[in-house]
């Protein structure tokens, strides 16, 4: 097996699938490109600020748009200080220093939920998968560590923890390594990703009730677009284990008497270093996916990012009350693009491509 290091493969922005698709379709996804440029600038600022200021056995991990390469002018910053080692007094100081530095660099503060902007030990993230102690916060951090996260500076703790999480999902999935199994989709992982997505959708309604005036429309827009994209990318990461030719060796290793999961683990690490949009573009580039579907997906997502990057429209979404929706032009725009995006996703997962359709049917619901 070639020596693969996930840190070497974490640069999906350079001439990836989205760019290729844009070129093939003669499209102009300026907002997507703009968001990538903005992300690169912010990442550079973070790297310079934290490169040598993160203690050993810890990693500063950022989530959300900066990890997805989708930063717009109003993006907030979700981060944690991930601790994978002995407790040290300086960890607390480091957390405050990080918060101050984010503030100095002009990042918006993390949300008020307490899930981010704090110090998090690795043990619960790795060990509490399922069961009563797998709290909403724990599930969120774990799933987002896999699907949309980025270490800044010292990444060793991050790499270690993520590999341990993956090992849990693959090693504990007994059906995955059964020799008689005809497909190699990591079902334990898939089910947890699905659980997370459903939790997000349910919590959206909970927050709507608990915080009636709190950015309802913006949350709804994100749920329809970026949150849905993250879930879709999670499904694809699981399905690609079965569909991709370059996962062939990893699949064969699973069926050995030693039930060797290491090949699939390394393969998945590489997949996780790709952004959700890159994953979706790769799926949309499968030969049987038609151009209309491709345009629906990426034209709509480009428009979504353009709206978020427009201060007036973003503010309108942030301030919008439910009663104003019917007369809001911005909301109508969100509605239209989210329907197009949903339609494109349905066609990728349930329509155009036989392989994806079969796996979605077999694993996606029951």
């Amino acid at each position, binding site marked *: 097996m070639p020596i693969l*290091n996930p840190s070497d493969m974490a640069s999906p922005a350079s001439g990836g699938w989205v760019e290729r698709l844009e070129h093939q379709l003669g499209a102009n996804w300026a907002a997507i490109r703009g968001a990538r440029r903005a992300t690169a600038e912010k990442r550079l600022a973070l790297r310079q600020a934290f490169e040598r200021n993160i203690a050993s056995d810890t990693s500063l991990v950022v989530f959300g748009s900066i990890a997805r390469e989708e930063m717009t002018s109003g993006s907030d910053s979700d981060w944690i200080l991930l601790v994978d080692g*002995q407790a040290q007094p300086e960890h607390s100081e480091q957390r405050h220093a990080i918060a101050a530095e984010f503030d100095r660099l002009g990042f918006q503060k993390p949300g008020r939920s307490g899930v981010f902007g704090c110090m998090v030990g690795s043990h619960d993230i790795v060990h509490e998968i399922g069961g009563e102690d797998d709290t909403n916060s724990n599930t969120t951090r774990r799933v987002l560590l896999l699907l949309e996260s980025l270490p800044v500076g010292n990444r060793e703790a991050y790499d*270690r923890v993520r590999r341990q999480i993956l090992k849990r999902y693959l090693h504990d999935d007994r059906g995955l390594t059964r020799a008689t199994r005809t497909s190699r989709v990591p079902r334990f992982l898939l089910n947890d990703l699905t659980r997370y997505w459903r939790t997000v959708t349910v919590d959206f309604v909970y927050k709507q009730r608990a915080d009636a005036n709190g950015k309802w429309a913006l949350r709804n827009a994100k749920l329809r677009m970026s949150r849905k994209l993250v879930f879709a990318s999670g499904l694809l990461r699981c399905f690609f284990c079965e569909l991709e030719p370059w996962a062939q060796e990893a699949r064969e290793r699973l069926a050995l008497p030693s039930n060797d999961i*290491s090949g699939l683990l*390394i393969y998945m690490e590489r997949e996780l270093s790709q952004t959700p949009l890159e994953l979706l573009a790769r799926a949309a580039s499968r030969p049987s996916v038609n151009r209309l579907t491709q345009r629906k997906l990426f034209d709509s997502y480009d428009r979504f990012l353009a709206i978020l990057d427009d201060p007036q429209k973003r503010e309108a979404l942030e301030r919008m009350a439910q009663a104003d929706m019917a007369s809001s032009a911005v909301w109508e725009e969100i509605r239209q693009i989210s329907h197009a995006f949903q339609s494109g996703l349905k066609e990728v997962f349930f329509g155009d491509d036989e392989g994806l359709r079969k796996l979605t049917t077999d694993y996606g619901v029951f």
Partner: protein
Amino acid sequence: MRRIGFSTGAIAKGDFLSALASLRVFGIPVVELSALRLEELDHLVESLPLLDLDGFEFVSFHAPSQFPVKHERYVIDQLRAVVDRAIPVVVHPDVISTPEAWVALGSQLLIENMDKRKSIGRTARELADLFCRFPDAGLCFDIGHARQVDPTMTEARLILEAFGERLREIHASEVNTSSRHDPLSVYAMFAFHSVSSLIPESVPVVLETLIDQGQSDILTEIERARKALDPQWVRAAG
């Protein structure tokens, strides 16, 4: 049957004569002469011609793990005397400042993979860079270091798959969060066992588990290592 022995430093720090005597009592076939601290080097090298090593099937020598750059030439000169006696020398790659000077040790130079405190030699990728510079060197695979760097043992597997042909010696111990070498727990044994099929039985194993303060004993640790590195162990143990 695997040949398993001890590092003299793990049995009696700085007192290789006592350590060798302890190993001879039990007829242990493998020993690594430890000069981990620079101040141990001269005495150990000078003593080499006088040591009774006949009973050992495999003998290696651990070079100092830390010294000022200005002493590098001197250390290499001392190690040449070891290599001249056909004894391989285990070296931590982070002490190498002048790679061309170490090339002279040829195939008797065994590069050890590092623990997570170090910035090089920890992963298969980092070792690949080193072996480019030392094409004749062998690998001393520290399975405890590999587990500390990646508890899933994926990195250990990658290292063994990539450099199995260079494998000349195994270091085994439980490396704790402070990078101290502890006796093997059952969890370390399970972890080591997961890659045992990639370690040929002919490769000698040197235990670095510290037992100098009575933490464990020679035979117990050897038995634990034997089980951990026996591909049949778990099935046999039920």
